[in-house]
């Protein structure tokens, strides 16, 4: 199996998850666990940085679907950044850009969270 890693960096109220490797059906549960942990800690402002992600499958996208309502229900959001064209294509194909804020980099996403205050 191909590896998948999540690194979490908290920046004030916002938590950044930098994900790396293959996000497929096998590793989706790792990301699920990580996001669940954030929600358990009442951290609802989440940025996911895709810079080092090489592959994403529908199951990976499903994880975002599974949490977005709860996150937004708690006045938070999941913002996505640093997608390679390959990753963006998958998001785009399935229609995600209309529902998720996709930014070029973390800084932009953080700023957009800060502007909401």
């Amino acid at each position, binding site marked *: *199996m191909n590896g998948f890693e999540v690194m979490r960096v908290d920046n004030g109220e916002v938590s950044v998850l930098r994900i790396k490797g293959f996000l*497929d*059906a*096998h590793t*989706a*549960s790792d990301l*699920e666990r990580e996001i669940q942990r954030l929600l358990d800690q009442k951290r609802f402002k989440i940025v996911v940085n895709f810079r080092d992600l090489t592959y994403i*499958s*529908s*199951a*990976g*996208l*499903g*994880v*975002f*679907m*599974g949490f*977005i*309502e709860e996150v937004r229900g708690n006045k938070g959001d999941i913002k996505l950044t640093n997608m390679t064209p390959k990753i963006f*294509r*998958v998001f785009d*194909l*399935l*229609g*995600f850009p*209309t*529902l998720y804020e996709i930014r070029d980099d973390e800084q932009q996403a953080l700023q957009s969270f800060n502007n909401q205050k």
Partner: protein
Amino acid sequence: MPSKKPTNPPRAPISTGLTRGDAPMEIRQRPYAQRTTNHNRPARPSRPANVYPHKRSSNRPSTNRQLSRELDERLVELQALFDVSKTLNSSLHLKSILDTLLLTPMGKMMVGKGLVLLARGEKRFVIETVKGLQQTHIGREIMIDLHEPSILVLNNEEGGGAWSAYLYKLGLQLIVPIIANNKCLGLMAFGRKQSGQDFTPGELEYLNSLANLAATAVENGMVFQELREVNRRLDKKIQELNTLFDIGKELNSTFDSDKIASVLAYALMGELMVQRCGVFVEENDRLLLQVNKGLAPSPLFADAEFLQWLRKLKEPYFFKKSKLELSPREPEWSEQLAAAGGVVLIPITSQEVVRGVLLLGEKITKGEFGQEEIEFASTLANTAMISLENARLFRETIEKQRLEEELAIAREIQQRLLPKAAPKLTGYEIAAINIPTHQVGGDYFDYFPIDSNRYLLTIADVSGKGIPAAIIMSNLQATLHALMTAEVPIDQIVARINNFVYANTTADKFITCFIAVLDAARNTLTYVNAGHNPPYFFNENGAANGGFRLLDKGGLLLGMFPGARYQSETIELQSGDWVLMYTDGVSEAKNAGDEDFSERRIEAVIRERLAAKDNSATTMIDAITSEVRRFTAGEPQSDDITLLSLHYRQTNAA
């Protein structure tokens, strides 16, 4: 706008209608050229772009200078037209083509509003781009029936069909068709000029020419857009295939049902943009909610009647719309499902039998599920179902292996409890056999010395099978060995064992037991029968004539009735006496006709053997077991078969 009212009947009736089933209506406007000029020169879309009829008719210039100036103007206009045409044809991006097509004339003629409709099927037009109007109009479908499209001016709301009324209300009054190869690709619609003046014939010609020049670009743009759409659909299919492969890979690498169901749910949620998903899976002939992502908990998920109904689903069931009427409780269920966040139920089948059901919530886009999406969900779920079934088989195999191991342990315990060799006593022959079933029953026999002259002989049957039975049996053996002393009468020992078993087992565990003490010095046998099949006692000289005695003195079976009392009986043994103990595995051995071997056949074998006059305890047992085998003729053995035989023959030495 033209000031004259139409005087002639319409040249080409045009029936139209907005979407949502409006009946086509007749439109009563006349082509603009007919109404606005005296020359009755219709502005036909097929007219070459550089022909300006009005200039050549009434407004012929009077001087050469004027003529030269007008020619220059025409040239500039022509140049502008070709420039636009070049721009239009240099792009394949439909939206930018249409934007150019709108903005160019709007700028030139100072018009504040405009839109472009493109034909998207039989009489079906869709608003593709708007200027000076709300963007929300984009995407709106309008039914327009144009027999012979030409430039139209809408005078008022009532004049035309529903479509023209719609455009008129938006402030759009000039309609210019975009025609390529005699096919109307679409319509441009413009509002008034900011100056308030009417469009001049020259402007109309300009628009017509522009529409003609743009037609090819629009057509190319449409083809290109369609190609892009097809490409995107192909990409989507590839993505779906990727998902299927990805899931297949994952599903085949695990036997964890929860994980499989979870992977299925997430893949569906990602692929279909759904936030809620539940997977019901069949287990032990019932459907159970295996995984729930985002659905509100509902008592419905455990409602036996609902789950039973789910198994009858043959096709996707949108419970807000369809009424299969398989159950009178459907309206109630639909409400509860909707309350839990569901929208559609999709059966998961394997070999055309429903093995599970998907419950999907609504799409985050609030859009409806397409046929392809439902099919995809179905395919994915069916794939996952194979894995779930494999997982179940795997679990069952593991469970079976575990049981096998347990049985092996039980068999070993049981075999260790049984004595290896019979005691050698002068004048006595003791033989026993235990044939356990595959399942390992609870039969037990034993013999051991109590003191130099006395021996304990026992046969017992413990309720149940497997390890629990083996453990009780081992406790019985330990208790017997510990309690059996020469000093205490065996009826009291049995009473104690009864209390001990009662105290140490559950209510459903009991033992039937025959315990006897053989005194080889006095040639007596003292026994207690605690609910066991009474052994046969007979003398070889008398038995042939039917002289059996059943050793049935004693009391109730062990472990059920605390404080039960037991009686014992002592028999004086004569030469030629036999005692044959057995368990119900012998008498209840069944043949193919479900008939018991029965005591009658045991007795028949005994008589037969005694008549043969060539007997030992061993041959007696062998004769019974081989007769049981013959009787059952290969039917599976349902219970342990155990026999213990004692034969006394006075020796010359004694």
